[in-house]
């Protein structure tokens, strides 16, 4: 009935400790724009990487035009016309547009590079895409949207038959998005098959023909987009089993009268705008959003790691000026960064030194540092956070992910921080360690601390939070109280479809 271009057949992909894809089978027709949808970690990017030859599937195969096409590496995939448009990487910034397009396939004449022929071809490609920059422009002079166009031009030049996009609009302006859509529709008209990953449902409705929904690595189904109610699409994305372990075991302990952190209209150049919320004593405030929603950037902005361009931060009712993490630390705030291994702790240091790093002033004995006091304190705090092994001389980098996270939290407990910002505290750690982190968080709020937990895991955010801040595209789209916690509702806000827009929903129907 349809001209099948790509077929995924019974694909399994197992990573150590995690099954990323489970028996995924579906087909993509020639010349369609096909959306891949799903929550964070549903397996979309993994699937794209398998198509692209970055990963090989543990089981199953990919067929292109009915022939097995499980590529061993990216190079083979590109040779077969399967090309991915990356966000901004993948181009050499110091080289020109022309040099980048012809990189690895330079046209030569009598053994030397034929610049004129390459220039003419580049100009032809750029004109056909409606680009106004010159073939001689250097990549670093272009903006993100233009870089994408260069990659698309390169894909056309390489006679691509399948082009995939992973969140292509996340750093584009509205005008650039418009241009991109025009180009995508043009590629489609030329018979090129497009795979499109995005969290933004309105984009899906605008340009996609069909959508395949993934959930927890399994394929939920493929739907024609036209006429499909938005609600149904969202509901098919959620519905993950709310994990048994992500829940509160003790009575809630929020003191709603005591606002410890008040953020008003905070904006930063890193991609968040007009952030306004309160954090109370004894509260676990969840921050939910999909990839690129600006949660991490918001935390870094409040913590002083990136500059705020505007906004007011008050601690305990007093306006404060936080210009650096040192200022934030002095105000008894602590941040456990999203990227634990590269930002959370220092690899070459052992537990003792990592735990003491933020509070060396406490261990000063005259002009010297007291190792003994540090070791004692590290052991004490290690016991409190249930660090295994609780050995101050053990190198943090050799611990499991969960225990590394405990070291990061222990560092802030050593400073007596009252406000803890935990960015994806359970990312990449096993279930047992997760529940330990949850228990620790609960213990801390019972001691009167306040916690902001950034997470992209719905079950975790629903199970642990007292309130949930939902972010979309750099802004807060909703702040929900516990009675309003509902997976579909939260995800609706996260994809940018506010529930106060009934018209939009009915239009989609």
């Amino acid at each position, binding site marked *: 009935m349809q001209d099948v271009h790509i077929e995924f057949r019974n694909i399994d992909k197992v990573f150590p400790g995690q099954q990323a894809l489970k028996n995924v089978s579906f087909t993509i027709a020639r010349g369609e724009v096909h959306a891949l949808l799903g929550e964070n970690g549903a397996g979309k990017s993994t699937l794209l990487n398998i198509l692209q030859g970055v990963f090989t599937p543990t089981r199953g195969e990919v067929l292109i035009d009915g022939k097995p096409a499980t590529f061993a590496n990216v190079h083979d995939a590109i040779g077969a016309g399967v090309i991915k448009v990356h966000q901004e990487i993948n181009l050499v910034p110091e080289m020109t547009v022309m040099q980048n397009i012809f990189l690895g396939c330079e046209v030569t004449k009598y053994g030397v590079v034929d610049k004129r022929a390459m220039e003419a071809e580049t100009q032809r490609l750029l004109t056909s895409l409606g680009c106004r920059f010159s073939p001689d422009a250097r990549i670093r002079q272009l903006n993100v949207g233009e870089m994408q166009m260069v990659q698309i031009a390169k894909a056309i030049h390489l006679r691509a038959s399948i082009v995939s996009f992973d969140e292509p609009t996340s750093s584009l302006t509205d005008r650039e998005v418009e241009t991109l859509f025009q180009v995508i529709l043009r590629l489609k008209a030329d018979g090129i098959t497009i795979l499109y990953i995005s969290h933004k449902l309105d984009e899906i409705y605008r340009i996609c023909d069909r959508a395949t929904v993934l959930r927890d690595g399994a394929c939920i189904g493929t739907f024609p987009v036209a006429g499909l109610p938005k609600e149904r699409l969202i509901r098919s994305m959620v519905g993950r089993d709310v994990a048994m372990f992500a829940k509160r075991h003790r009575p809630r302990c929020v003191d709603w009268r005591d606002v410890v952190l008040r953020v008003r209209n905070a904006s930063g150049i890193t991609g968040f705008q007009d952030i306004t919320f309160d954090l109370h004593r004894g509260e676990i405030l969840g921050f939910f959003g999909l990839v690129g929603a600006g949660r991490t950037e918001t935390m870094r902005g409040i913590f002083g790691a990136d500059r705020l361009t505007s906004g007011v931060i008050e601690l305990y009712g007093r306006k404060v000026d936080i210009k650096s993490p040192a200022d934030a630390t002095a105000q008894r705030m602590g941040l456990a960064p999203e990227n634990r291994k590269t930002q959370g702790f220092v690899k070459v*240091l052992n537990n003792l030194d990592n735990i003491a790093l933020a509070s060396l002033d406490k261990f000063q004995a005259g002009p010297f540092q007291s190792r003994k006091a540090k070791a004692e304190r590290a052991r004490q705090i290690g016991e409190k956070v249930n660090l295994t092994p609780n050995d101050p001389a053990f190198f943090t980098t050799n611990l499991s992910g969960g225990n590394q996270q405990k070291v990061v939290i222990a560092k802030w407990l050593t400073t007596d921080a009252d406000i803890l910002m935990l960015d994806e505290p359970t990312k990449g750690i096993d279930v047992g360690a997760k529940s330990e982190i949850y228990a620790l968080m609960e213990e801390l709020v019972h001691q009167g601390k306040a916690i902001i937990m950034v997470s992209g895991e719905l079950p975790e955010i629903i199970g642990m939070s007292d309130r949930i801040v939902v972010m979309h595209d750099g802004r807060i789209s909703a702040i929900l109280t516990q009675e309003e916690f509902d997976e579909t509702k939260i995800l609706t806000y996260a994809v940018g479809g506010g529930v106060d827009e009934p018209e939009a929903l009915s239009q989609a129907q």
Partner: protein
Amino acid sequence: MNLKHFLKHNSREVGLLVALVVMTALFGAINPLYVSPANITDIVNQATIYGLMALGMTFIVISGGIDLSVGSVLALIGVIVANMAVAGVHPALCIVVGIAIGFGVGAMNGFMVAKMNLQPFVATLGAMSFIRGFAYVISGGYPIIGIPASYRAVVDGMVFNGIRTSVIIFLIVAVICHVLLKHTKFGNYTYAIGGNEEATRLSGVKVDRYKILVYAVGVSCTAVAALVQLGKLGTGEASAGQGYELNAIAAVAIGGASMAGGRGGIVGTVLGALLFAGLKVGLIVVGVDTFWQYVATGLVIVVAAYSEKIQSKFSEASGRVRTWGAPPQRAGGTTGD
């Protein structure tokens, strides 16, 4: 602390010590003169200048940086202090001014790295040239001679049996550096910044300030080297110290510091400096052709660096045994403790 634990945590230093003993025995076997007290004193004397510079370089390298300007700094401080000493300024004041200049130049280098965000290699390459230029401008290109004996006695006087004050100064500075590095907040931050600057910054450490301080302290050690050198030679010359920065870096590298930052120590650097000086003297004593001396020295640097790689690979393997369910990472070396 038991012996096994000590060996495990100080394997690099122990290895260097063994290498030093073996090398001394080898050269001694070929030419017994090598192990004569006079020759050994000579080696130690030679090691003091590189050694002092290397002590400072250790801080900079551990913090993840490098300073190519120290050879030029040696010349600049040499000519300035020579002028002062010749003019009859008290030796104590000469020493204070010399160290202050070193501290200032280091702070400037640190400022370029920390605040102007220049790569240490490039920033200090620039500094290397303009500091050398200032040395020539100040001296007019002429050697400054006639350093008073009172000054020379302070920095390089004979104490007893061939032991000079310069050696004692070297030891004192080494002890101070060791204590600074291992037992102060400043030292802890030096390791942390070299190990992971971003994580350290996010821990509330004023990283920029400490990086400037690292260069200031590091170049101050070169200032001490310049003061001692002036006493040893009795002349201040704008052309002095050319290429010394590389010798200092070599001693630090042989001593086991990682050029990527985060690892290294004073004991290793001192042994590295002794090994380096001992090798140079040894090659002369056993009669190796001058040209071949360069070849041999270069080989030793590469072999030392490679042995450090093998060693960290080995400790990574042993770290795996102690791993609690985590994928093995590069195990830490001789840091912190």
